[in-house]
């Protein structure tokens, strides 16, 4: 692994520093601070561990560093360059912490999801753990100690903490300046070896209390190695904190970054090696959208299907959902999110903690693994990202005292509650608000097919309101037809037209009701491609545009265009019109070098075109999205 890492350490640390230094609270020192002052959730928050230790402030550096099994330069893998914290699409969210005993050697490509056996290190590395200078040992134990005490008292910031920290900074600061790269590596290998050795021993010194730990380095290692979730919760927590960051780094290389820049060839190559799904990159991609993944459609599904019965780390329920995403059976933000959460529920039901592991960490790792599989099937929607973030927070906040079955039951009810409160009930509230805006004689226009809008229309119809609906549709998905069918089936008066006729039909429209995949904090509405044009036309005709979106889909990111984050669909879908042989002039042309086909899935509607956003918190103007994001975050992360 070193052979792999060395060139990278030299690569471009300066550039990275510039990129990463900006948000000070997100630096690696984040988790340290958070441990001392806040509950351990913060550990899982996307910001905490997404950064390389390069910019660890000097005083803390050593403590963070020492608890890691690898040199600090390691995580400088190019994969992480785009991990500038932008929100739920942060790598850490999907690929974050917690398997400690991961095989550090991940160059054996497909094995990244194998849970590494802890013995590996013991054999592969000579134990040279005690060559460290005494000073380093000292500081190491101290830092270790602080975390232990913090784990015990998650909320109370005691004076002792402060003291210890001071002590640590005092002892580690000069060290940081002294150590060379080689020294650090030596140090770390030593630690890793010691840890592995301790694990191999497996002696039950886990009861070693923090006072004892102070005395020498060795018991720490042993305690760390043998810590298990039930025996020694505080130490388990320590281990988690210490090595989370380490495995996190492994992870980050393993999991395809949700917003990976696909125009970076080397990175794509690496990601490919690891992926479960064999994907063929499409050849002629549009210049502006090269950073988005685009694969040859139709090649992946059969391949995956054939592997259904192979022993994969992916739970069958998740595998099934992934296949359905890939095949396009499940579409729509809510449907995809619910399907995913239910699959996770299945997998949690079947889950049992492997020996020598803590449920919290192992389950999070499992979820990460599932999520990366799902990303390979289809890029996550923002709603799914938020739901995953919720689930991980819940897992991380499970009390350590819970037994496995209790923990599982808690998680299952949490997921159920999320589905019912944040999605189903939220929709009901939205419907309640929205129908007040429908008057007799209204002509409502909707675009595509949104579940919330459909419920609103049907409910207004049930209330006996006299209105007409214009369903606007667009190729290639023609989702509006299904909506139209259901509306007409219920007896709603409908007009069906394609988006080409939008400026004609807009004359008679009095309200535009649109769904959204997400609402970003600058008020931008991220939705099915075409929504922006509909909103723009409506705005120029002075027709109010109402966006119906559940608050769990809100996101704190800011996006100004549809380019930097989007999803590419199958280019064949726009090149071909099924059943119309006479206009399929592009048959066989799609691989021509001079032809680039662009099938975008989403677009961003500027907030200027939006009159109102209807959420489960009521009707708000687009300028108030940040308030909702703030309130909502607090509610679901901290309760």
């Amino acid at each position, binding site marked *: 692994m070193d052979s792999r890492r060395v060139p990278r350490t030299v690569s471009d640390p300066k550039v990275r520093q510039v990129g990463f230094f900006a948000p000070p609270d997100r630096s690696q020192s984040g988790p340290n601070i958070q441990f001392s002052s806040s509950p351990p959730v913060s550990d899982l928050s996307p910001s905490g561990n997404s950064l390389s230790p390069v910019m660890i402030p000097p005083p803390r550096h050593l403590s963070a560093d020492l608890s890691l099994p690898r040199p600090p330069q390691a995580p400088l893998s190019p994969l992480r360059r785009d991990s500038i914290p932008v929100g739920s699409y942060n790598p850490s969210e999907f690929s974050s912490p917690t398997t400690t005993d991961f095989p550090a050697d991940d160059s054996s490509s497909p094995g990244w999801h194998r849970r590494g056996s802890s013995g590996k290190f013991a054999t592969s590395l000579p134990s040279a753990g005690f060559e460290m200078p005494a000073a380093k040992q000292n500081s190491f134990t101290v830092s270790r100690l602080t975390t232990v005490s913090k784990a015990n008292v998650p909320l109370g910031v005691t004076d002792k903490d402060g003291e210890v920290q001071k002590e640590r900074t005092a002892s580690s600061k000069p060290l940081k300046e002294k150590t060379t790269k080689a020294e650090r590596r030596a140090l770390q290998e030593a630690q890793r070896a010691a840890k592995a050795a301790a694990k191999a021993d497996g002696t039950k010194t886990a009861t070693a209390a923090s006072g004892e730990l102070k005395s020498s380095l060795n018991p720490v290692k042993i305690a760390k190695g043998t810590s298990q979730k039930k025996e020694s919760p505080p130490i388990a927590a320590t281990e988690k904190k210490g090595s989370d960051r380490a495995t996190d780094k492994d992870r980050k290389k393993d999991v395809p970054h949700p917003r990976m820049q696909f125009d970076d060839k080397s990175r794509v190559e690496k990601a490919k090696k690891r992926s479960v799904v064999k994907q063929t990159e499409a050849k002629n991609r549009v210049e502006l959208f090269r950073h988005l993944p685009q694969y040859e459609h139709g090649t992946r599904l059969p391949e995956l299907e054939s592997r259904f019965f192979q022993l994969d780390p992916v739970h069958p329920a998740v595998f099934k959902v992934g296949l359905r995403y890939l095949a396009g059976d499940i579409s729509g933000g809510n449907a995809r999110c619910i399907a995913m959460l239910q699959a996770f529920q299945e997998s949690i039901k079947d889950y049992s903690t492997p020996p020598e592991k803590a449920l919290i960490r192992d389950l999070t790792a499992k979820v990460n693994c599932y999520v990366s599989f799902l990303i390979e099937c289809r890029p996550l929607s923002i709603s799914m990202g938020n739901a995953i973030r919720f689930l991980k927070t819940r897992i991380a906040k499970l009390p350590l005292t819970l037994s496995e079955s209790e923990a599982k039951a808690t998680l299952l009810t949490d997921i159920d509650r999320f589905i019912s409160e944040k999605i189903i009930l939220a929709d009901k509230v939205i419907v309640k608000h929205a129908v007040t805006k429908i*008057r007799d004689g209204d002509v409502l226009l909707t675009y595509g097919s949104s579940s919330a809008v459909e419920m609103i229309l049907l409910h207004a119809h049930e209330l006996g309101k006299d209105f007409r609906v214009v369903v606007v549709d667009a190729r290639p998905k023609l989702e509006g037809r299904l909506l139209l069918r259901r509306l007409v089936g219920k007896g709603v008066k409908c007009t069906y037209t394609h988006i080409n006729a939008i400026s004609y039909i807009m004359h008679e429209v009095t309200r535009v009701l649109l769904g959204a995949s997400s609402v970003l904090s600058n008020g931008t509405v991220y939705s099915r491609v075409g929504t922006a044009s509909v909103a723009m036309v409506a705005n120029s005709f002075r027709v*109010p545009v109402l966006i119906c979106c559940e608050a769990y889909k809100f996101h704190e990111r800011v996006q100004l265009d549809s380019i930097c984050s989007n999803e590419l669909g199958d280019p064949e879908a726009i090149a071909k019109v099924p059943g119309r042989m006479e206009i399929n002039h592009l048959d066989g042309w799609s691989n021509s070098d001079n032809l680039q086909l662009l099938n975008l899935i989403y677009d961003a509607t500027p907030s200027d075109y939006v009159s*109102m956003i209807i959420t489960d*918190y*009521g009707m*708000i*103007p687009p300028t*108030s999205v940040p*308030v909702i994001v703030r309130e909502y975050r607090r509610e679901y992360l901290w309760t």
Partner: protein
Amino acid sequence: MWHRSASFILDKRENDDVLSSESRRMSSLSMAAETPQQPNPNNPNISAYYQTRSAHHGVVTSDWLAQAQAAVGHSPDGAVTENSLSKTVDSGKTFSVIDEFNNWRKQPDLAEAVAAIRALASVIRSSEATTMMELEIELKKASDSLKSWDTTSISLTAGCDLFMRYVTRTSALEYEDFNSAKSRLLERAEKFGEISYKARKIIAMLGQDFIFDGCTILVHGFSRVVLELLKTAAQNRKVFRVLCTEGRPDRSGLRFSNELAKLDVPVKLLIDSAVAYSMDEVDMIFVGADGVVESGGIINMMGTYQIALVAKSMNKPVYVAAESYKFARLYPLDQKDMVPALRPIDFGVPIPSKVEVETSARDYTPPQYLTLLFTDLGVLTPSVVSDELIQLYL
């Protein structure tokens, strides 16, 4: 015993008008249904809110004005306060929040919402409830009856809602025995009343900074906040000129120009349709608001929207002075998307019954046409209103 409200006087006057004037009859308002005892809450055709306003600030006829002033004059403010206080003591079981409210409401200086807040406070005071729950239910009932008394008044509804939230949402209540909890509730209620009462002065202080020497201000409608603001500015020896719109149909602008003339501020009256004509000499526009809605726009007297439109096209700032108890959880999408508040319009000549008359009393000005809102929470941009509302109501 309760004093007859000023709106009642208006009702009576209208009754007379129905008898005498053709135009009244065509406005198809079922005056016959109205009893002289009460401003009719069951008649949705006439906005009680606007009746009160025109009774307080409108100039309809000079003899009516004298009558109204006489009605107001016979119970000066201090007397009303004492009276109501003594009444709550002796009224006992027959206490009615509406009566109390009407009592307060008669003072032209007291906003309707503040009157409602005071009335609700006296509900707590005179309550004979023995448990917290009982008291809260009683309070809820009282606020509901106040709200239903006049559904067209935005500030009344919003004021009641905010009162309920402000007063009953305190965690301290859970740890105390009933009596101290009740007194704490009362304390909070009076504090809220006090805050609301002071709001106007706060706004005046905030807003007068925006008036610079030699500027010309256009004012629409009779807003007590705007008057207070201009008064403060005049007292601070700022030199400015005011253009007053006439404010049809109750011609509240005439009354406003009267008030300003008393302060020795140079005033010029415009008819409502002369706004665009004189806009080039205007430096800023001041308006009040009946309600501030969630989008950050305002609902105000008819004509505000067109003034804001003209101002926007000529790049003149539009300032709104409104107390925070007027912040309502409403979100109109367009002009018709509101609870209609209608009022009769006297055209002076008979109008054939075939001719339709637009009797809406107010319009909605979207936030993009407003520059700033002066509230007792501070000087806000329109988009902050929603943030404040979310924090108040969530």
